[in-house]
């Protein structure tokens, strides 16, 4: 597979030429079906003989617990939260993603730097600053953004949880005192930010309003192409 590229610079001690795996990112809001589809894709890829590693956000050994605690208190400034998330991201990048790419795995990422950047930018961070923080991230071989209409998102969220999540509703952003309104506005802002980033980073926007089998077949077809392309080079 092709050597990995990085956005700007690579982290100290990493030889990008030796990263031979493929990095595939699934982006999308909560309840867009990310984890369901990552589960289906993992099974499918393993059946075909690919070793798969799953990674996500807020899963690092280093700061995940502290990050969770800090979020409960909601007293971090937006920039502190950004950097806390960046610490978590790079910890996983260096301890999980890079070793897996080095070992030739297909890495399925349940969200990536784009979600982190979108959240920060919606909260007022300067895009160049946010981009500079994540400049050492490997460029994925493909990014699929699961686009869901607000209506579908609300239906699915309520079916699953019967309540809206504080952060996914952007309640810290002061968009509305009404939780439901805030959820809609926040999700719209995030979606707009993804659309803005789409051109820059080359996402494939996937219609995720469809049934699980329909979306699954679509994703598998696209990933097949990605793997064929990366294996040729």
């Amino acid at each position, binding site marked *: 597979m092709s050597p990995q590229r990085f956005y*700007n*610079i690579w*982290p*100290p*001690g990493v030889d990008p030429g030796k990263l031979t795996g493929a990095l595939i990112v699934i982006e999308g809001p909560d309840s867009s079906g990310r984890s369901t589809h990552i589960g289906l894709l993992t099974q499918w890829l393993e059946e075909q003989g690919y070793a798969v590693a799953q990674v996500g956000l807020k899963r690092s*050994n*280093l*700061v995940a617990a*502290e990050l969770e605690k*800090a979020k409960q208190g909601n*007293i*971090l*400034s937006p*920039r*502190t939260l*950004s*950097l*806390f998330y*960046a*610490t978590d991201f*790079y*910890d996983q990048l*260096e*301890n999980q993603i890079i070793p897996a790419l080095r070992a030739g795995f297909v890495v399925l990422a349940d969200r990536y730097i784009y979600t982190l950047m979108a959240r920060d930018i919606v909260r007022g961070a*300067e895009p*160049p*600053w946010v981009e*500079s*923080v994540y*400049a*050492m991230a490997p460029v994925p071989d493909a990014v699929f953004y699961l686009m869901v209409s607000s209506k579908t998102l609300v239906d699915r969220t309520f079916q699953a949880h019967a309540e809206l999540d504080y952060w996914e509703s952007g309640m810290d952003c002061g968009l509305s005192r009404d939780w439901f309104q805030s959820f809609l506005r926040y999700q719209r802002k995030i979606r707009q930010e993804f659309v803005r980033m789409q051109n820059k980073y080359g996402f494939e926007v996937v219609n995720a309003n469809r049934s699980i089998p329909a979306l699954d077949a679509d994703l598998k077809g696209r990933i097949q192409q990605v793997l064929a392309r990366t294996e040729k080079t």
Partner: protein
Amino acid sequence: MVTAAQEKLPGKLIAVEGLDGSGKSTQIHLVHQWLKSKGYRVFFTEWNSSSLVKEATRKGKKRQLLTPTTFSLIHATDFADRYERQMLPLLRAGYIVLCDRYMFTSFARDGVRGCDEGWLRRMYGFARVPDITFFFRLPLEMALGRILEGRPQLKYFEAGMDLGLSADITESFRIFQGRVLDQYLAMVQEYGFTVMDATLSVHAQQKLVRKVIQDRLDLALYHKRFFP
């Protein structure tokens, strides 16, 4: 566009930098006592002291989980927390903010660890350059002597053991501190450090430090308006 890092604020920011053992903490402590006793609005903060981030740092250091990148990010997180919750609001309110170590500590140490210079500087781009940065310059051998005779239990990251410079912790510390010093010296011009001769007596240095502060700041502006 003027960013928060460049806009004019009523408060003043004073930072001290230098190697471990250079005496900078003693000097900034004495400045703090002096300004408090004169009734000025003053606040003191030190590197790596935010309670929120401390636990993660402690854990990471103890278990040696940190890479140069995460080591740097965790300190930047700590800095951002203190900067946005304390330093910046206090500067807006017209306080003199004293910092024991500032972003230059990261530039020096993380630079030695191989972090990209531009990446570090852009990450700290939200922080203003202090009005005065005192750099306590001490020959390497003297700084090493002060630390090695006073506190022989060197810590893993403090000695740069993560860089694999030497299997011997004392030797690693020597090499690491030497490289950190080179990084600092390269920043003197770029950031306009006020270089202090840290071989002088504590009292002699403090007199010079106070003189610099009196000359550069109009201290009368910082008298407390209300006394409790």
